[in-house]
């Protein structure tokens, strides 16, 4: 299908001899939230790392109608932004500096960047209070907010989120969940979500793919996957 924002065709990733992704194909349309779900070690993180240029792959990826470049900084320049597993924040820099570095490749008006900063602070008021604090002194939940905020500061055309609520307390998870919903209402943001937590994925996704040991084995809407006997048995505990 032509015209999807992200088109992935036959992508494979090998770590040495081990095959972590095998011939994976999928697409993400403009404005959609697509979730890749799957158990530990399925290859979700590997997939996002390949798309952001951190890990070499075989296969073809098109983004916004062009072949995806290979270098991470070129990919970021096109607006494919990755909020990674483990966050990869700059620990000894302030919250504010971390957020502003998210806009490193933007060449638009400083006023526009300032506006996005206000938007991030509105979404996560806690970050505004703590903007001068070094990131390594924040709680895990606050750090995750910085990670999402930093990604938003790049003004993504497609935001890739890797398990954004992993290891967080229920109340923080709910907060991030809400933030994601408000963001979508406001900006029609396109999201590719890698998630092990099926509840979170079902709540946010328009469509989902199920990834198991490096292969996509199911595709469908929330409704279709919830009704799928295999998914029910393996992932929904019924």
């Amino acid at each position, binding site marked *: 299908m032509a015209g999807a924002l992200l088109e992935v065709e036959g992508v494979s990733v090998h770590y040495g001899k081990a095959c972590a992704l095998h011939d994976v194909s999928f697409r993400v349309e403009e404005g959609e939230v697509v979730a890749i779900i799957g158990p530990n070690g399925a290859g979700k993180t590997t997939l996002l790392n390949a798309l952001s240029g951190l890990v070499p792959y075989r296969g073809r990826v098109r983004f916004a109608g062009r072949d995806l470049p290979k270098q*991470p900084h070129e990919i970021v320049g096109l607006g494919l932004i990755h909020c990674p597993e483990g966050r*990869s924040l*700059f620990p000894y820099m302030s919250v504010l500096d971390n957020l502003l*570095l998210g806009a*490193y490749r933007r060449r638009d008006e400083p006023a526009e960047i300032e506006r996005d900063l206000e938007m991030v602070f509105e979404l996560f008021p806690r970050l505004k209070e703590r903007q001068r604090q070094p990131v390594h002194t924040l709680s895990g939940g606050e750090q995750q907010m910085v990670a999402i905020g930093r990604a938003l500061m*790049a003004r993504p055309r497609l935001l890739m989120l890797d398990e954004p609520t992993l290891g967080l307390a229920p109340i923080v998870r709910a907060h991030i969940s809400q933030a994601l919903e408000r963001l979508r209402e406001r900006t029609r943001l396109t999201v590719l979500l890698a998630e092990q937590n099926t509840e979170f994925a079902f709540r946010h996704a328009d469509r989902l793919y199920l990834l198991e040991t490096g292969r996509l084995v199911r595709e469908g809407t929330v409704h279709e996957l919830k009704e799928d006997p295999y998914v029910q048995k393996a992932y929904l505990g019924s």
Partner: protein
Amino acid sequence: MSVVVEVLVLGFLISALYALAALGFTMIFGVAGVLNLAHGAFAMVGAYVAIGALDRGLSLPLAALVAVVGMALFAPLFYWLIVRPVERHPILVMLGTLLAAVVLEQIVGLSFSFNSQILPPLVGGSFSLLGVRVTYDRVVASAIALAVITGLWLFIHKTPQGKAILALSMERKGAALVGIPARRVILGVWAISGALAAVAGLFIASFMGISPLEERALLVIAFSIVVLGGLGSIPGSLWAAFIIGFSETVVQQVAPEAQGLASLALLMLVLTLRPQGLLGRAAA
């Protein structure tokens, strides 16, 4: 009283020069994880570029400029040709840069001489401060060194390019994911490192004289400071430069025969108490 003044004036100058020598070395390590054992040679070559330029009739300020700009171009080239091909193998990086340093020693020694040479002072004259003769040259040198260090600090903390350097030194993957082009930034840091080494080399050549083999002593000083301050930490290196600079100056005044031992003793003490150095791996 005059001993105190002497120690303060001389200690400050020496410390500032040590800081200049160490900063480039620590930045390269912080950002690229590379121990550049040719860093002392960079300082030495910088000094000889100025000596050569003077021989060809350039004025001293112009010769100094040629040296600094020259090393700012030479260092990235050095990285590209010698370090980059073996970047993933720390042992080969160390062997390669050490070998390159020895080659540079020989080239400089054969084109000039292996004897010590001295650069003329930038300005003449002196004044008396509480009974101690202080040359204007030392004052000017201290001011320049301080200005360079302040400028570097402002660049790193206040400009996007500087923050990119810090970001890269803290978190490589995060830097890639915000779109910082690592390769280009690293080349820039080599250029800065080369320029700083040249400035240090010029001052050292002017105050203490320099010979091709002197680069080894410079490397040892830079290395001790950087290890004491914490590998990759800029403020750590500044602290350590002043600690080592002043303690060496004090020792030189009160017990000249123990020179060099003071920094060694300090280094061993700190590394026993804090193996990661004074300021650990925090580049900020």
